[in-house]
């Protein structure tokens, strides 16, 4: 009998402790590409329209995951689905409040770097909710990452 899909995914975690790094770097590259396409169309498209088209672009990937055997299972399936759905709601509403901030008088030079500092909220919330702890190097890394994110978004 094979292990459940989620257990199999957790087993990957044990096989290579740096797999998370590979996928994180891949995310940086993919989101970097997204950032470049956004820059290319920024002057030609309304922010709300961009959000709609952006969501349409995400849709075909659902077909990719839909056939996965890992769509079934999960320890606390309902709870996991709730948090995944909440992630999408927070991301989508975050985009709307971001545009609203710009539309209600916020300067892009302030609002963009400010929203870019959201990982600080993640780190604090992860400390409180997930009891995550960082190594000394990682704490310094975070200290360097925040001004880096700020400068890169100017």
């Amino acid at each position: 009998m094979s292990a459940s899909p989620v257990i199999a995914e957790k087993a990957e975690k044990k096989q290579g402790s740096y797999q998370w790094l590979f996928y994180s770097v891949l995310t940086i590259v993919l989101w970097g590409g997204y950032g470049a396409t956004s820059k290319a169309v920024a002057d030609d498209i309304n922010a709300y329209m961009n959000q709609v088209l952006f969501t349409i672009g995400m849709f075909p990937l659902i077909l990719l995951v839909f056939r996965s055997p890992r769509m079934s299972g999960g320890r606390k399936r309902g709870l996991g689905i709730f948090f995944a759905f909440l992630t999408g709601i927070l991301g989508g509403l975050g985009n709307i409040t971001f545009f609203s901030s710009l539309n209600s008088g916020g300067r892009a030079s302030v609002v963009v770097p400010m929203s870019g500092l959201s990982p600080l909220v993640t780190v604090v919330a992860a400390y409180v909710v997930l009891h995550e702890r960082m190594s000394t190097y990682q704490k310094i890394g975070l200290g360097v990452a925040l001004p880096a994110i700020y400068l890169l978004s100017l």
Partner: protein
Amino acid sequence: MHFPLWLVFALITLLFFGLSGVTQKLATNEISMELSYFWFVLAMLLIGLGIVILVPLDWHLRAKVVTLAVAGGFLNGLGAMTSFKALAVGGKASIVVPLCYLYPLVTISLALAFLHERLTRTGVAGIALALVAAVLLAQERPQAD
């Protein structure tokens, strides 16, 4: 004490984006990356549908603009998927999220190559700090089983 409306919206954005990193990890603690991504996109579709219904949109766009915007969504979706995967295979939200937020590093490089943008001093400083940050954030101790 008076807060301008734009600041209220900006602070809500900061909070929502920040918390989404933790809810992402909470999801992958319980279900697979694939199922997490499925429900994440369904929520995004709901928001997109809300915009279509509530906000007057100008659909008269050039094909090139539509293609690039949709391609951007596709790349962002793939990135969301790999970020779910990074968390599902054991990455900490407090490390993976700040690391992934260094993506403008790649955006700037692509903009230099394809959009013929010029690099500013703040851009150079940002890139240098981002590279140092990436190396330091990657210094994870092997997990004890």
